[in-house]
């Protein structure tokens, strides 16, 4: 098995474990509290408005929006890490069918792995810092991923007529 395939499969498995571990931690320690906060702040906002406590209602609804902002990104990071890990493993299985040299394939696999880690990490960091740093990290990660995906698609498309060499056995 080539280095690129090993890197993709091993990184994919590690990322899946990391993403699921984060999901488990999130589900046990954070999610229910967040959902409770979402439900109670929205309900309170309307209830306070019904009681004509408008400043209180505004504060409750602002709290709902803040909780929603964090919730969306936490779930997004978890979902994208696991989804991207599946993509890495799948590409690991078929990367020998990409018609590029081993050197290019290694670079592509490094790009895919880097993007798969950095993009959701940037999204997650936005919950702690709403500045440009995490946003730029997310943009950088997704740009690397997009470019690598484009190259992989081209690599699949330009098949050699006789097909790439068959990899057999284990190395």
């Amino acid at each position, binding site marked *: 098995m080539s280095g690129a395939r090993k890197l993709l499969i091993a990184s994919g498995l590690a990322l899946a474990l990391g993403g699921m571990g984060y999901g488990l931690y999130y589900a046990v320690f954070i999610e229910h509290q967040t959902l409770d906060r979402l*439900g109670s702040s*929205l*309900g309170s*906002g*309307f*209830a306070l*408005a*019904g*009681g*004509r406590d*408008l400043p209180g*209602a*505004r504060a409750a*609804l*602002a709290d*709902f*929006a803040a909780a*929603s*902002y964090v919730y*969306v990104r936490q779930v997004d990071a978890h979902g994208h890490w696991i*989804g991207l890990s*599946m*993509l890495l*493993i*799948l590409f690991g*299985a*078929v990367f*020998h*069918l990409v018609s590029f040299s081993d050197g290019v394939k290694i670079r592509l696999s490094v790009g895919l792995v880097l993007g798969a880690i950095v993009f959701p990490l940037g999204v997650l960091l936005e919950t702690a810092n709403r500045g440009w740093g995490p946003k730029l990290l*997310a*943009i950088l990660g*997704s*740009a690397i*991923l*997009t470019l690598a*995906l*484009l190259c*992989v*698609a081209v690599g*699949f*498309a330009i*098949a050699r007529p006789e*097909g*790439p060499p*068959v*990899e*057999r*056995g*284990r190395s």
Partner: protein
Amino acid sequence: MSSASQTIRPMEGESQAASFPPLGARRMLVIGGMALILAGMLFGDIFAVFVLHQNAAQINARLLAATQAVAARDAAGIAAAFQDTGGFLENRGTKVDAHAHMIAFGYIALLLALLQPRVALAEETKKRLAALFLFGSTLLPVCVFLIHYVGLAGSPFSAIGWASVFADLGGFLVMVAAAGELAGLWRYWRGPKKNGAGDDLLAHAAGPARALLCGGTLLILAGFLHGAYYAGFHLYANEAMDQSLITTMAMSAASGQPADTAQALGDYAQLQGAKAVNIAAHAHIIEFGILAILVALFQPYVFLSERWRKTWAAVLLLGSLILPVFVLLELRLGIVAGGIADVGGLLVVIALAGMLTGIVRYTGRLDAAQEVAS
């Protein structure tokens, strides 16, 4: 689909019969996985047509009721409206979960099928693990679907119903099966080297298989580009508008400005629709891309003529593009676009059913050849 024997290019020879034995683990996982994906997609199409929009309308109606209760200083009415909304959200959420899990388990079954030659366990054990995986993969989504209808009936627990309990059991069985497969992989990697023990299923890709690999990757790429565009240009604006509209609803209702409330409610419904179609388009195009890559790998098992294999590959890719594009266009074109998107989903279902038919034919041909040989 006639004259298959003249033009087909499926795997030939005894080695393939050995790698795809009758009721073997790989065969169970391939056929079971594709059946799960098919069932999940059909369910998704039915859900989109008969439940999704009606459910969204009910949620909007409850939001209207909540604002009316705010205007009338009716605290009990506010609480009731939000409680009803919770019920509608549960109805939608459990159906989306059932749809997503069935398809995701189908993908994992296909991935496990690919890995079978590298799972160093006895064939009987692998068959049991495959059966356990498929049973759990069916039990979980079926029971998640039932959660909304069964509720807490007959349950000894205060917050968890029997449907949830059996759904969790399904998830547990899937985890046990996956752990077993992982143990088999570990034994393979730790065991002695087996030179020449490669899997011809992954050896090469030509014709429809390569089209599916390339098309699948392009679909994923399109999904990424759309996701990046949405995150860059709409996500933050939509979040700000979401907060603004909810606040306007509550404040205008409390201040006796029903026209503003109605406007905010209408805009809020539009915004939720915009968010939903963007997320659905992003998720579906990427899922279909992964599906295309997965089914590309099993093309050697599709016992159909080259022409039909190309046709099903093209239909799958076409449907995979039509559904997300027309989901996105729903906001502009309304129900017509929704209908076309459903047709796109149906095309994917038909293509998958065509490929599954080819795989079932392949198994029949292998078994018949083995019977003649023996």
